[in-house]
């Protein structure tokens, strides 16, 4: 305790008054900003005032003013190191931001999306995949898309084999090439004939669905069109079958095949399996998790073990994933008892869990599935 003279009560009162006044001044500075006083000066003033308060409390209330030097030494050395360290640290975080925004650079897009990892990666993706991002959205793309619906035709005819054990598939490897032209006819026909609506939906949705390549600029309209526009309605009553099929064909068919039979030994079947998973308590959420976060680990379906990786599809829009799931649950089987179509909201609700593919596998185990 401070030897000899103690601060008198009157001093305390005065200090307290000053502290109160300063606090009010700070309040006033912020609530009624002075035009003539630039924001720079206001900040300076606020900092100065708080330092005054700080010092007064330390000096008079904590008695450092007339207390032993040792205490002041301890405290001020601590304050000094803390200030130096964290002012420096904060500067290192704040200054680069300023630099980045003002850097004249021929890759402005990169800088713009600097803060957001996905967009940044997608940018890279854009540049890597298609010559010009715009291309995806405008008409020439349609040609591309028609190809893309047709593209995984090879899987189609493969899938006809894959119903039979793989042995057959390889045995007839040569034959496969021979049949190919014929095989390509069929889906083309169905793609055009069956539902041109599917085509439309697909076109509208592709930019978002196929890969989230577009930056916000292009992505926004795409989003606006298919999912978000009709989402409220969809959420309420039914869901967009064609859109679901389109998303499935664009993203899932390569592995799980058009018929949902998968590839024995490589990729598990969805047909008949998805619905039984859905029937399990908690299965509905698990399915959503599996598409959002992916799945990694050994699983057993119809007595066959699959030890692969299902990539995470979280980069697709909620509505896309919802409809794809609905497609999977209804395309090849009768829809399970008490089936409630997934809505974009359902998917969005799952996202915060931020699971890893391994966690999803653990979840699967927990459901009693193996």
């Amino acid at each position, binding site marked *: 305790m401070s030897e000899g003279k103690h601060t008198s009560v009157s001093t305390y009162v005065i200090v307290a008054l000053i502290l109160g006044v300063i606090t009010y001044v700070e309040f006033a500075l912020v609530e009624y900003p002075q035009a003539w006083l630039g924001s720079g000066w206001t900040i300076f003033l606020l900092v100065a005032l708080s330092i005054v308060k700080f010092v007064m409390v330390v000096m008079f209330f904590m008695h450092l003013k007339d207390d032993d030097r*040792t205490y002041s030494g301890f405290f001020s*050395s*601590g304050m000094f*190191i*803390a200030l*130096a*360290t964290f002012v420096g*640290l904060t500067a*290192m*975080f704040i200054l*680069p931001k300023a630099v980045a925004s003002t850097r004249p650079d021929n890759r402005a897009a990169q800088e713009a999306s600097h*803060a*957001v*990892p*996905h967009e940044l990666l997608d940018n890279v993706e854009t540049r890597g995949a298609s010559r010009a991002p715009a291309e995806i959205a405008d008409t020439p793309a349609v040609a591309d898309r028609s190809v893309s619906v047709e593209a995984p035709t090879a899987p189609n005819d493969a899938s006809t084999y894959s119903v039979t054990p793989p042995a057959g598939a390889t045995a007839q490897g040569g034959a496969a090439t021979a049949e190919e032209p014929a095989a390509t006819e069929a889906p083309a026909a169905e793609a055009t004939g069956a539902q041109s609506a599917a085509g439309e939906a697909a076109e509208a949705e592709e930019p978002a669905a196929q890969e989230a390549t577009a930056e916000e600029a292009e992505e926004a309209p795409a989003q606006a069109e298919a999912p978000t526009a009709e989402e409220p309605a969809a959420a309420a009553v039914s869901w967009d079958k064609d859109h679901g099929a389109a998303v499935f064909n664009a993203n899932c068919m390569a592995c799980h095949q058009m018929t949902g039979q998968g590839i024995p030994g490589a990729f598990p079947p969805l047909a008949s399996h998805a619905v039984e998973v859905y029937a399990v308590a908690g299965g509905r959420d698990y399915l959503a998790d599996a598409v959002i976060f992916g799945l990694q680990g050994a699983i057993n379906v119809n007595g066959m073990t699959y030890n692969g990786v299902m990539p995470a599809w979280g980069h697709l829009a909620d509505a896309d994933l919802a409809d794809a799931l609905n497609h999977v649950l209804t395309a090849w089987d009768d829809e399970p008892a008490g089936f409630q179509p997934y809505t974009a909201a359902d998917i969005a609700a799952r996202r*915060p869990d*931020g*699971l*890893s593919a*391994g*966690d999803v596998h*653990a979840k699967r185990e927990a459901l009693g599935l193996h």
Partner: protein
Amino acid sequence: MATAPTVTSPTRGKIFNRPTWTTGVGSWLTTIDHKRLGLLYICTAFMFMIFAAVEAGLIRLQLLSPTMNIVNPDHFNQLFTMHGVTMVFLAIMPLGIGLANYFVPLQIGARDLAFPRLNAFGYWIYALGGLMIYTSWFLGGAPDVGWFAYAPLTSLSHNPGLGVDFYMFGLFISGIGTTGTAMNLIVTIINMRAPGMTMMRVPVFTWMILIMSFMIIYAFPPLTIAFIEVILDRTFGTLFFVQEAGALPILWQHLFWIFGHPEVYIIILPAFGVISEIIPTFSRKSLFGYPVMILSGILIGFMGAAVWTHHMFTTGLGPVVNTAFSLTSFVIGIPTGIKIFNWLGTMWGGSIRFTTPIIYAIAFLITFTLGGITGIMLAMPTFDAQVHDTYFVVAHFHYVMGGGALLSYLGALYYWFPKMTGRMMSERLGKIAAFITVIGFHGIFFPQHIAGLLGMPRRIQTYPAGIGLELWNALSTVGSWLMGIGLVLIAINVIHGLTRGKRVGDDPWDARTLEWETSSPPPYYDFKVQPVVNSLDPLWARKHPEAMHVTPPAPDAGAKYDAGGIHIPGQSWYPFLASAAIMFGCYALMYDNFILAIVCGLFFIFTIFGWAFEGVGGHHVHFDGAKENA
């Protein structure tokens, strides 16, 4: 010296009666005696060091050749992570703190630390935290993210296992203990020096401990915050290091190294202190440039807080930041160089007696000089851009931490063993072991410089064949076997010393400082009469007044300070119970058992109140001699 009947403080309103065992497990669980706690610290630290050495041996075996496959990558990651964590947090730093615990009060002529129960708490929370980390081997895998656990490697999405939780919680709580002990040591050194011992008469070891303690209290809070942030991320789903939310993983690196660089000096400063005790003793000469030594120590302490990003030169901080921090890093080289020169100056003109401790001191000088040189190289961002995170860095910090700290602590073990046990270790075996250990050490780490230059990154479970790394890794592994032999010999020597080492007097080395004035091992009240000091090296002054040009105070000059008797604080259960409560609370949080966590929290609060209201307690010891003077 008949001790008067002991006056025990009133025990009304206590939950537990104050334990008064002097032997048995209970006495160790409840002890608040700084010497017993010091021994506990030292033994626990050496136990952890054995674990770490085994892990290191496995790492070297795996790297013997590119084709070795004795551990898979996951186990390899766990091995080097645990090796680093153990050595830095659980072995070498606590070793310094343990020595401080035992010898600081003795060196400044005090009867105990200022807050004995806080001291006990510090030990128990450190020991339990360390054990907690090691239980991870049996509870689903040890941490595997490297000892500096860069985010986002520690985030749930990249690391769902429990290993990271063990790392975070274990180091978090043992960090609390370390901070408490450091505060305790500061108050002790400021407040409990013997009459007449001004700050400029304080032995260098104690001075270095003081600086180390200040570095601890400034360095650990940022680390604690970093741990808390990750724990919250993993347990309560906050977003501190979740990159999808826009978080900046680089922040972890800053917080960690704001702690991490001072940590290097926290580890090395006590070693400097030990060397500054050993060299004067065995060259029968006062330390050369005592004030300069202290000053450079303080400078190192302050600069140590201003160099943290030299561990981050390759993270793209930009040329300006890199320049600033490389300059501050260069500046640290200056006081370090001065220290080395001053140790040479101490030996100059002395008469050097080649005992085992000074052999370790010499090994320290050589190793640390080499480590300092590579350190200066690494302080150059341009060159660091090449060797950062390679075996060149591995070699560097092992030269500084292993060669610097570990070798000098082994010297300290030989130097203070007679004081702690009253027996000598075998000098002959000691010297043989010392040579094998030191040669083995250089055999391990010198080739690693070259492996690094040849392009070998650190933390790889195997390395590309045919780019010239085979020879150097093989040499390194062989060196590890050699050093292993050396360490085994040292262990044998310790056991031999404990069982049938030759009994020696209070001052076998003809030493200079106060701890050698009392009997070996020291009695529980440390000094029969409060020592009084009027010069540096008080014991030396008593033995050779003419050489020191001082007249030492009369032997019983301090008796008047003991008029009220020597107060011996009472033992207590609360430090141990409080630490146990914290540890089980952490386990509960780790397994998301919040009920149990809350229960542990409440029990912790209960222990704190019990602790607060039981009082210091204890009794007073009176000596007849003291009575007469009173």
